[in-house]
């Protein structure tokens, strides 16, 4: 028996431990560097830092609504619904059409006129997107439920193209804008940059939505059915759960959330475009993965993180890559998370036993 044979064994046994240490060191360095950059910006231009921070929180809240949709659908049928971002885009389109083109809201009406109309638009957007999502599931994904994983994934991509092109056909390639409907009163000033009421409103709306969802999934019968189907399709069916209906309900929920997110987005950004959905959807998906796919609170947390990262990257002055690198930064995060910590922040590490 050679010396190498004798020494190789123990070295190999120790290798995973070395890998873990290396990983820990690398992530500490990365996070440390990040903290330093943030600190530098905070110290050198505090006003800008805070306003960018607040922007990030607003963005994050919008992403959260879309990310939760992704995570719900992935959790229940393990499908990355590429069309989800485009459903969100349709939410924005519906909002613009209703509020700006049909109703004609433009911020000049009194609040007791605006609020119910906006609420109505919200319901309409949610209903539209929810229905759209359920229909897509029924006709494009359900027939492929037992097909190899590749088929529904490709179908989702195809649906994404179809949804985009439909919007292009109906609305044309240019931006669609809606005037400020959410109150734009300035709440306070941070370093010269105003923080408007609408930003706060977006955040305030997303919190109860998340709370309601968590309650729904944890405590109601539908929620329990969703969790059962997510864990074991066949067993759930044998327990008398209508799997098809549960999945349809999940899609309805995800679609409605995307619709709500669409309204938030338009209210905040005041404009949209037919190709907005795909990339934004991918950012939201990154958020869902970052937080732990299948985990609701994780989706929210991940979305906040992504929103902040985007805002920091595009808004801070010192030592950030800048807006031409936003896509790369966020996808780099996606890749790093999937490679080094696929369960995300809040997920459980996948055990040996599958």
């Amino acid at each position, binding site marked *: 028996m050679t010396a190498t044979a004798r020494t190789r064994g*123990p070295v190999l046994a120790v290798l995973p431990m070395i890998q873990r240490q290396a990983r820990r060191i690398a992530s500490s360095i990365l996070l440390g560097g990040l903290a330093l950059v943030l600190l530098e910006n905070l110290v050198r231009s505090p006003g800008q830092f805070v306003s960018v921070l607040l922007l990030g929180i607003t963005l994050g809240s919008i992403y959260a609504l879309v990310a939760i949709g992704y995570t719900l659908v992935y959790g229940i049928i393990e499908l990355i619904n590429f069309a989800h971002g485009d459903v969100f885009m349709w939410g924005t389109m519906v909002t613009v059409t209703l509020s700006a083109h049909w109703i004609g809201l433009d911020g000049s009406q009194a609040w007791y006129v605006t609020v119910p109309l906006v609420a109505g638009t919200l319901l309409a957007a949610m209903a539209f997107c929810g229905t759209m999502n359920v229909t897509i599931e029924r006709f494009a994904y359900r027939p492929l439920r037992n097909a190899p994983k590749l088929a529904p994934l490709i179908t989702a991509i195809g649906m994404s193209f179809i949804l985009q092109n439909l919007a292009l056909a109906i609305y044309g390639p240019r931006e669609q804008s809606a005037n400020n409907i959410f109150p734009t009163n300035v709440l306070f000033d941070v370093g010269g940059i105003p923080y408007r009421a609408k930003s706060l409103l977006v955040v305030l709306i997303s919190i109860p939505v998340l709370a309601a969802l968590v309650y729904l999934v944890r405590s109601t019968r539908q929620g329990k059915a969703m969790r059962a189907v997510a864990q074991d399709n066949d067993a759930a069916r044998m327990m008398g759960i209508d799997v098809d209906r549960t999945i349809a309900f999940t899609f309805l929920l995800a679609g409605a959330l995307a619709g709500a997110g669409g309204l938030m987005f338009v209210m905040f950004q005041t404009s949209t475009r037919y190709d907005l959905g795909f990339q934004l959807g991918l950012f939201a998906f990154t958020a869902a993965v970052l937080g732990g796919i299948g985990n609701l609170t994780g989706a929210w947390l991940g979305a906040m993180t992504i929103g902040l990262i985007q805002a920091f990257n595009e808004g801070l002055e010192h030592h950030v890559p800048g807006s031409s690198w936003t896509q790369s930064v966020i996808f780099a995060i996606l890749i790093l998370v999937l490679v080094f910590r696929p369960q995300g922040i809040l997920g459980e590490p996948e055990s040996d036993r599958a």
Partner: protein
Amino acid sequence: MSEAILEAHAVRKEFGGLVAVSDIDFDVPRGGIVSLIGPNGAGKTTFFNMLTGAYTPTSGQVTFDGREIIGLPAHAITQLGVGRTFQNIRLFQTMSSVENVLVGMHCRMKGGIFGSILRTPRVRREERQAHDRALELLRYCGLHQRVDEEYAMNLSYGDQRRLEVARALGTDPKLLLLDEPTAGMNPQESADFTAFVGRLREELKLSVLMIEHDMKVVMGVSDRVTVLDRGEKIAEGAPAEIQRNERVIEAYLGSGAAGQAGAAS
């Protein structure tokens, strides 16, 4: 050259809070046939999976042919000479019988990218020899010529089990791990298989470790039987001793049965 081809010392496997295998010492003598038995859930397949690199033990050491194998990836352990079959048949369904065995022979062949693209004489010869050897193994394991080119998924259950063994033999193993090889076989087939395992030891000089539930097979061919229950080794010895062992009977049939079984045998 030590006596045992496989030695496991204080091997333990925990899944979260559950202890599946609890500090087991175990060995397979060179040229021996050892059976691992025990009620369902005793940890037998978990133990197997640790020997083949599919799972990493929480603690303990395993040496094969003198080499420490913990932490090695599955394919490296196979290359060292451990072949296995699976409890639930895991053949390559859209490959023919011959192709399945050829895959088994992957690590004993050398053809690389350039050799394959250019079909150098060496690669052509290697493929031809491999093909011939695959046919030999198929015949040796009792598969009829007509299923050679048949997709594995179309084979009968018995043939599929035989093919799994043939494929494992393709890896040119020194130790063969068989996971419930006779599950689903009728008594005649089980008897044939028992004889076959003996031949593997006599003719191919293999050491064999089997998980088995069929006591006729276990008693018929094993040199030694080890019994696991709830992750622990509760008995070990010659087949006849194990048959009479009270703890073993209790584990299988529940307490109280020991007295009755003892009276009956």
